[in-house]
């Protein structure tokens, strides 16, 4: 029996937002483990707390309570700069609306996270970018601006950008929400292929029931609690 190590462990994570005079309990004590190489979906309706959880996992938001470890690192004790460093090295993001920089071409968009990795040589950087773009099947579009690509192609660019730093964890926030059904399946196929090929842990949140059958693990969240 293969025992996967826990890449991420959340214990009793709570998060409350204040909206005007109203307190909204987005997360009410989340306990979660994600293992290396896992391909998981965070499923929940709108307002269930899945985006908040994803943001906390991506270290771009802090919980009010609880503990969060990544490997043997206590993430919540890190400074803002250390968290940035962690994100750059170990976490990749894929957003629903792609978040590509419109003035940069495909190659440059993928290159973005590597711009701050000063230890990489130019050659190494170039090779990584080309490899990432090739992995998502956009080798022929290197110098195209994002607005010349279809939605599916843009999301592939976002995937390439997330993978170019060789992260341990990829977080995708409803990556197929803006795509049609055929493209959605292609993107999921691609993510699964990359998961197998690169042994990267994938967690994407969705409320698209069609996708659920395709993932190894479904994590259901409702009213800020994993059920």
């Amino acid at each position, binding site marked *: 029996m293969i025992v996967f190590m826990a890449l991420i462990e959340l214990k009793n994570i709570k998060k409350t937002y204040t909206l005007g005079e109203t307190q909204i309990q987005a997360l009410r004590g989340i306990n979660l483990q994600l293992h290396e190489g896992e391909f998981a979906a965070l499923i929940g309706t709108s307002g269930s707390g899945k985006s908040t959880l994803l*943001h906390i996992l991506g270290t771009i938001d802090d919980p009010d309570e609880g503990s969060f470890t990544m490997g043997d690192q206590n993430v919540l004790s890190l400074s803002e700069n250390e968290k940035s460093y962690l994100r750059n090295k170990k976490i990749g993001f894929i957003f629903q609306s792609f978040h590509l920089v419109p*003035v940069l071409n495909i190659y440059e968009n993928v290159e973005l996270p590597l711009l*701050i990795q000063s230890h990489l040589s130019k050659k190494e950087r170039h090779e990584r970018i080309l490899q990432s773009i090739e992995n998502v099947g956009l080798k022929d579009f290197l110098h195209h601006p994002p607005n010349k690509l279809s939605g599916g192609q843009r999301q592939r660019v976002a995937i390439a950008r997330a993978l170019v730093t060789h992260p341990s964890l990829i977080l995708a926030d409803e990556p197929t929400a803006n795509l049609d059904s055929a493209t959605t399946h292609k993107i999921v196929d691609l993510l699964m292929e990359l998961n197998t090929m690169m042994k990267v842990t994938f967690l994407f949140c969705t409320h698209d029931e069609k996708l659920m059958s395709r993932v190894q693990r479904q994590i259901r969240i409702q009213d800020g609690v994993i059920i």
Partner: protein
Amino acid sequence: MELWSLAFKNLLRNPRRSIVTGLAIAIGYTGLNVFNGYVHQVERTLAITSIYLNHAGHFSIIKKGWFEKGLSKPRLFSLDQQDQTELSDFFRPYENDFFLKTPIFTGIGLISNGCRSLPFYIKGLERIYRTETPKAPEFIKWAVLEFKRDPKETYISFNDDDFPLMVTYNLSQLLNKKVTYKNAASLPPSRIIDCQKESEKEYLSKDPSVQLLAKSFSGGFAATDANIVSHYTVGFSFLDDISIEGPLSLTQKLYDTQSISRLIFFLKNPNSINHWKSKILPLFEKRFPKLEMVFFDDPRISPFYTGSASFLDSLTFLFILIAGISITLTIINSLTISILERSKEIGTFRALGFTNNQLAWLFGREMILLTSLSLFFGALFSVMTAFLINASGLEYIPPGASGNIPLRVSLEPQFLFISFCSFALLVLIVSYFLTKKRISVNTSRLLADS
């Protein structure tokens, strides 16, 4: 791609805004440079007028108290022959530093055309002063054209027997002396004239001779005939009514003395004046406790220059302040809009691992590029504007001046460079701190921002 390249591409995101922001900076910078160029030209012209035309020299030596009592008690406050010998000995080691070293005698008295007597203020100078000073490089560079052309004739080509005298235009008019010694067709025979008769005015206007009356050093009154050999201007209206200039030897003869009022020094390298102030002045003060070394920027010897220069400096400072504030506000405005528009992108950058510092420098780079390009074009505009102004031949009368002077702009490369760097630095600091403040919000909020 490097971060500078990314910054440049971000500037092209909204070209119209970048161009308008850049133009605002370029125009402000052009205005500042042209204004400073004008101030620089005026300051230099005033300095050269003081140094060369009003005989302040780069520095001069006087007896202490000369400014207060030199004209009323000239004998006590002049440099006698012993002083002059000791001064020659002291300055001998520095002879190679001087473009010219020359004595000057100044005095007061009455000048008369036979009918009318007016007070005069005479400067007696060695002929070499008139032959050499127009050759001084800074005089050639900065003196306005009229001062270089005028006077067309000086006393240098006349014998002492003629007592050649230069009289200012205004004083000549007051004395009704329209012709000069050389231009008088035939000198009218000397005769007694009836000053009450209107017809005698023409006779007076054709006669270039005048009479000088002064109190000599020996205590009595001395008078002499003199001939107006040219008309000239000293550049300042308040001196143009009373000033005359003649050869030193004749002036000393009129006052019956070998003393001089001041010893004037013109430096070969005008920039060495600070060296003289810091190094030579203390030695001089130790050696000559009763004498004083007065530099041209001393308000006692160049009141018009120092007063105007400090006024112009204040204006320049104010202008720099206004330009600095305008550029800062322009940058703040442009940067704020840019940050607000790109908050989602900032969130993405943060999610990709950019720290706040790195993002602040990225925006800083954008603003530095925009400002540098704008300032570069501003410098080009400045050169073009200065060229157009100088080529236009416009003239104006500055306050206190005795005539028109051309409107000229002399751009200072040093000022262009320093202000360029200062504004670039200012923009970098402003954009860094503004960006840092603006982006210091939760990343998930930035990403959610629509």
